């Protein structure tokens, strides 16, 4: 008992130094002005960026929904494949994640460019060049591409535990494919769905790389604004901290709302 507690100490110290204290600093910065005295002005100043905040949440929601729609059938098919194929497919999904995030997004810039690979290809058929980059669609595409594995993996890990005989039992009792998914697979996948939604939504809502590289300056997200308060021309760490704090509170609120909804779904079934 004592040793196991002692083993936790490095972790606790780590969390303290790199999570708890910085979080405390964000709160302190958010509620002070440059002279260090208490103020709520930073929170009021945020109102300028309300539309950016809503755009960030909206884009992240769209990206999360698309990820869910793509990942659900993919994860199900993988979970029912032969075990050798399962591991190969999972590796294939992970491989892009071994390449640097910025490089991956940079590759999309080259693909979507008016002189890029896709437009060149379409040009062969006399189509285009199409406006594929520097718009909202490109930003959402970037989110979906980068964060899709975060949806597939938790869904897969839940689905692979669903006993094949439970699926056969549902078919035996008259389930068509659709009702099998609706009445059995979906409810049993709920824990994976809530993990996946959080894993996609949180990085999407706070990203600044994707929007900067694929958004063309007209689709800035809250992450871009926060970053510019620390590194950019409009240096103001107090306002930046306030925005980070508000974003964090909103995300936590939405997640707890979502989890509540998820639990009720399950609760109603049980």
């Amino acid at each position: 008992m004592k040793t196991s507690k002692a083993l936790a100490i490095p972790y606790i110290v780590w969390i303290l130094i790199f999570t708890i204290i910085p979080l405390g600093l964000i709160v302190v910065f958010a509620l002070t002005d440059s002279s260090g005295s208490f103020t709520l002005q930073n929170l009021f100043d945020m109102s300028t960026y309300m539309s950016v905040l809503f755009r960030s949440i909206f884009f992240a929601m769209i990206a999360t929904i698309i990820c869910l729609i793509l990942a659900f059938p993919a994860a199900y098919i993988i979970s029912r494949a032969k075990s050798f194929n399962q591991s190969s497919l999972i590796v294939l999904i992970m491989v892009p994640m071994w390449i640097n995030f910025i490089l991956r997004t940079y590759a999309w810039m080259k693909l979507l460019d008016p002189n890029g690979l896709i437009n060149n290809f379409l040009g062969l058929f006399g189509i285009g060049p199409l406006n594929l980059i520097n718009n909202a669609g490109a930003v959402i595409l970037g989110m979906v591409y980068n964060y899709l594995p975060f949806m597939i993996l938790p869904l897969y890990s839940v689905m692979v535990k669903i006993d094949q005989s439970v699926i056969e039992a549902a078919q035996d009792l008259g389930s068509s494919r659709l009702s099998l998914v609706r009445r059995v697979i979906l409810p049993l996948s709920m824990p994976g769905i809530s993990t996946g939604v959080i894993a996609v939504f949180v990085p999407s809502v706070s990203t600044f790389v994707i929007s900067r590289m694929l958004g063309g300056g007209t689709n800035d997200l809250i992450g871009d604004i926060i970053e510019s308060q620390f590194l950019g021309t409009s240096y103001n760490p107090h306002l930046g901290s306030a925005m980070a704090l508000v974003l964090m509170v909103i995300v936590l609120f939405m997640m707890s709302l979502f989890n509540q909804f998820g639990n009720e779904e399950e609760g109603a079934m049980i």
Partner: protein
Amino acid sequence: MKNTIISLRNAVVEYDGVQILKSINLDIVDKQFVTLLGPSGCGKTTTLRIIGGFAEMASGELFFNGVKINNLPPHKREVNTVFQKYALFPHLNIYDNIAFGLRIKKLPEKEIAARVTEMLELVNMQGFEKRSINSLSGGQQQRIAIARALVNRPKVLLLDEPLGALDLKLRKEMQIELKRMQQDLEITFIYVTHDQEEALTMSDTVVVMKDGCIQQIGAPQDIYNEPINAFVADFIGESNIIDGIMRRDFLVEFAGKEFACVDKGFEPDELVDVVIRPEDIKVVPQYQGAIVGVVENCIFKGVHYEISVDSLGYKWIIHSTQSEEIGAIIGMNVTPMDIHIMHKSEA
């Protein structure tokens, strides 16, 4: 008049190039309790899965009430299955598990409630409606699995070793209950097991299988008393199987002696399997015995003693209500009626 409800014709199943079922033909009589019996890997579960729609035949035909249903998906077949591992829905309570099939059929909730209640009574689980699956013992889960299948009023109920995970006493109770349900509901049960006693207890017809082939089909008494070959004899209860030579009709030689028997129609001097049930061997004083041997072991089995005897290198198993001293020399007798002569199996 006995109606055939399910027929398999030349059913072949292959998996990774290996034949699991080697062209079997089987007719299931309506409203019977039919057991597919055999050791693991004999193809009995595969046969059941063909009927349920979960296994595909490489060739062959499956008829249900005379209609070919080879390609009918499981959810459209008028059969329901009780799975080996129960396969209850973990996210649903007991009521919703049983109601599952009826909800898919979009029956009115009132009728669903009536039928679920009726089923809970049938399996003696009244009052468990709101309980979760995880709060049940194995035996209770099995009852719910049976109720969940029967509530759909299938014409045929398929059971895949449903009692395998239960302890002996519970298993015996459930055997009797299953038989009662089958008789009360007047539907066909197709039951898969490797337990010969279970098969004999419940069945109207037993189908003995081995290596993807059907060995024998018959009533339990016929299978037990008149096994068609040494495999069936050995699988259905314990047997002494000895090499013998059929000298002529009604006379067989084994263990170095000639015995009168009731079998005929063999080639002269044909090599045969002689099968004698352990309970059919009488222990007598040495000088009265047709066969004489040394007691090697004597184990108490509850109802009887199991005595191992060595006679000139032949090993005999005897079931007797009386124990014998280890090392004692005893005589053994067997009546002509109890000597079963079988052609050597081809294998």
